[in-house]
């Protein structure tokens, strides 16, 4: 590996870490600004002033904000996200299983959605402005335009109620074997796929069409290559960077934005966990989940950046 690539990649990673630190400050500051008092929230309206003072002391709420931030960050760096106020459970361990579930669902959706979107994009370019192109674009846009819950309920109605092929409730736990787990997520994964498909497909199509104007596409045509081979071999490799970018954005959405689908299918993922604890005003949990979501976003965007750098032959093979 040549040095410019390494330098660029190192730069991106460093930048990502700085960004994550900044986000952690924002999350911490944001939850501090919120009205209300943690001690009051825990003990309830009927708590005596003495009890409140004691608890504040115990929780370190009397320390200055920056010190509490440092303690909080230090704990996170050691895998300690604190305890949930509402349940008293260790946040790290409850998030652990939830995150695994969320990642599993996202991965299932991505494995289907990403290749499907790219292939549909390639086909749309091959038959650009023709019937097939319009059909693909039309269906993809329609599936995106329907709200997630609508798609979810339609899937439940058809596959769980009408044909009874897949379960309507996707509850899983640690002991669920892999195949059952897979069966459980089929419907939510399908719903998610339908939601993210169009965006990626349209971007793939646009990125490749952009490249199709290049002189080297004409060269390939004049070599006698078949239209689809031209798109696959000569256009797609030069359109990777924008495609990866939009794919990563959608992957991030699959991980952090699936609350509605999780609720519909009663799937124990991060989104549901977050919503539950926002309702209970459980600040430590909200902070922890917020930070994890930010980390996911930043990581995936770094991956997209790095992929774009590595996909560029000028950077990969300097003069």
């Amino acid at each position, binding site marked *: 590996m040549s040095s410019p690539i390494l330098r660029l990649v190192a730069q991106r990673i460093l930048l990502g870490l700085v960004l994550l630190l900044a986000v952690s400050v924002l999350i911490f500051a944001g939850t501090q600004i919120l009205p209300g008092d943690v001690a009051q929230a825990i003990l309830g309206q009927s708590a005596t002033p003495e009890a409140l003072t004691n608890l504040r002391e115990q929780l370190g709420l009397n320390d200055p904000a920056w010190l509490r931030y440092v303690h909080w960050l230090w704990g996170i760096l050691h895998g300690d996200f604190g305890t949930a106020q509402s349940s008293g459970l260790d946040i790290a361990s409850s998030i652990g299983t939830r995150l695994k579930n969320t990642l599993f669902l996202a991965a299932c959706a991505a494995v289907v959605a990403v290749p499907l979107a790219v292939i549909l994009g390639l086909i749309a370019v091959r038959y650009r402005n023709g019937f097939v192109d319009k059909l693909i674009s039309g269906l993809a846009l329609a599936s995106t335009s329907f709200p997630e819950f609508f798609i979810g309920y339609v899937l439940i109605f058809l596959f769980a109620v009408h044909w009874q092929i897949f379960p309507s409730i996707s509850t899983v736990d640690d002991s669920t074997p892999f195949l059952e787990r897979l069966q459980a997520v089929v419907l939510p994964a399908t719903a998610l796929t339908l939601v993210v498909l169009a965006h990626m497909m349209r971007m793939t199509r646009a990125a490749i069409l952009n490249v199709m104007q290049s002189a080297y596409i004409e060269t390939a045509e004049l070599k006698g290559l078949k239209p689809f081979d031209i798109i696959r071999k000569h256009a797609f490799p030069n359109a990777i960077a924008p495609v990866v970018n939009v794919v990563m954005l959608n992957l991030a959405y699959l991980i952090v934005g699936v609350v509605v689908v999780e609720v519909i299918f009663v799937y124990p993922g991060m989104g549901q966990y977050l919503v539950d604890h926002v309702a209970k005003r459980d600040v430590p949990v909200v902070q922890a989940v917020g930070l994890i979501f930010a980390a996911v976003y930043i990581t995936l965007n770094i991956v997209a950046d790095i992929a774009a750098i590595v996909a560029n032959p000028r950077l990969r093979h300097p*003069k």
Partner: protein
Amino acid sequence: MADTKANSGKLLDIRNLRIEATVYPPGEAPKTITLVHDVSLTLEKGKVLGLIGESGAGKSTIGLSSMAYGRGGVRITGGEVILNGRDILKAGPKGVRALRGREVCYVAQSAAAAFNPAHKLIDQVVEAAMLHGTATRAEAEKRAVALFKKLSLPNPETIGERYPHQVSGGQLQRVMTAMALCSEPDLIVFDEPTTALDVTTQIDVLAAIKDAIRDTHVAALYITHDLAVVAQVSDEIMVLRHGRLVEWGGTQQIIKEPRQEYTNALVSVHEIEHQEQQPGTTPFLSVKNVTAAYGGGHVKVLKNVSVDIYPAQTLAVVGESGSGKSTLARAITGLLPPEQGTVTFDGRSLANRLADRPKEDLRQLQMIYQMADVAMNPRQTVGTIIGRPLEFYFGMKGRERDKRVAELLDEIEMGKGFVDRYPAELSGGQKQRVCIARSLAAKPKLIICDEVTSALDPLVAHGILKLLLNLQQHEKVAYLFITHDLATVKSIADSIAVMYRGEVVRYGSKSKVLTPPFDAYTDLLLSSVPEMEIGWLEKAIRGRRMESAGN
């Protein structure tokens, strides 16, 4: 098919070719225009036919029709293209794909754009041969290496492992020729293969192409606007204009005894008689020991350059790409502040940085660029474009401004009718004229002309040069004329600076610079300019004293 092939030596026979395109003029209904009007030509095996004409003559369009290809919505609507005994216009998509890259190959003007940046050169070179099953991968690679050798590319064994951006323009053009030859076609279409190259590189590529054509017995359509170039490689020449045949004959006949007036105009050397002016006593602009660099001082592109410009005279700066010509202009205008040295103007030194210069200094130095169409806002009319410096520098408004714009349009020989036109409605030459008027509007002492005629057809460029000389007499403006074209230099310069790798290697009055004895580089530069003489290429290659930098 075999018998029709046998009874004639004809490889390509184009009959009454008619090519049309639909254009969408702004604000009007789409209309169909005819690009090629019933042109016929024949080409025998192993022969080279030169197609020559200005832009819009239909040269490339005709060339590409031999591959049944219409670029960008162009349609072949009539006639026959008979290749190896069959009409390829009736071959259908599959039949056409079978001949492209197999029987006919294409070499584009800009190899840098025509190679896919994502793949290694060797993969692209052997692609067509493998696709059409004329060779296995190993055979094709062997053939490619042999071709790289024949085209005198450096490191023929390993150059294929490189990516397009790792190879220079001249080399890339030769790799593209190798790519065309690799599938052993019957015909190659060369579309301006040396136009984008420096003269010193052009001569190498031209010689390589000529040798390769001779040794492989491939036939060729050689498309160019440069008669001197085509005279070196063609057996016959066809002159085209506005999509019609003007004249077709042997190379010797076309360049020595043209029968048509238009051919004669192309053939006759367009030297403008320009009497060199003696430098005055004091230059108004002096560049003293300027050193400039890009990338925070890492890449030195100007090394200790000193030149003087005298009032109402022209200093021409010549050199190949990368020699620092344009950087000199950027240093003078303050776009690239010099690291060392000074630029003095009217006896005082100019601020190094553009941002530190007062408006008056900005007004005195104007620029005209090579690409006139990208130097103008496409959404502004000619009147607005020319009027802008009048408002900006002199605060002119309303009728006063319009009057001055009309005067300027008169000066560039375009007339008032153009005031409301948009750049897209103008021809290349007209666009450049508008740019000239815009720079004149500021009443500058110096106009920097950066390759202003390079993108234009010879006859149009000729008109622009004449205009510039006339304007110099009327307006007493000086020019810093940057070019790689020595013929242009001869017709416009009073003094010349020859640049090579960031240094001025020869500097003085025109007569002094162009009189022997020459230094090695000036000699190379001068001897590389194609002359309209059969056999010039061989003579020039033999007489060289140094290799070109682009090699």
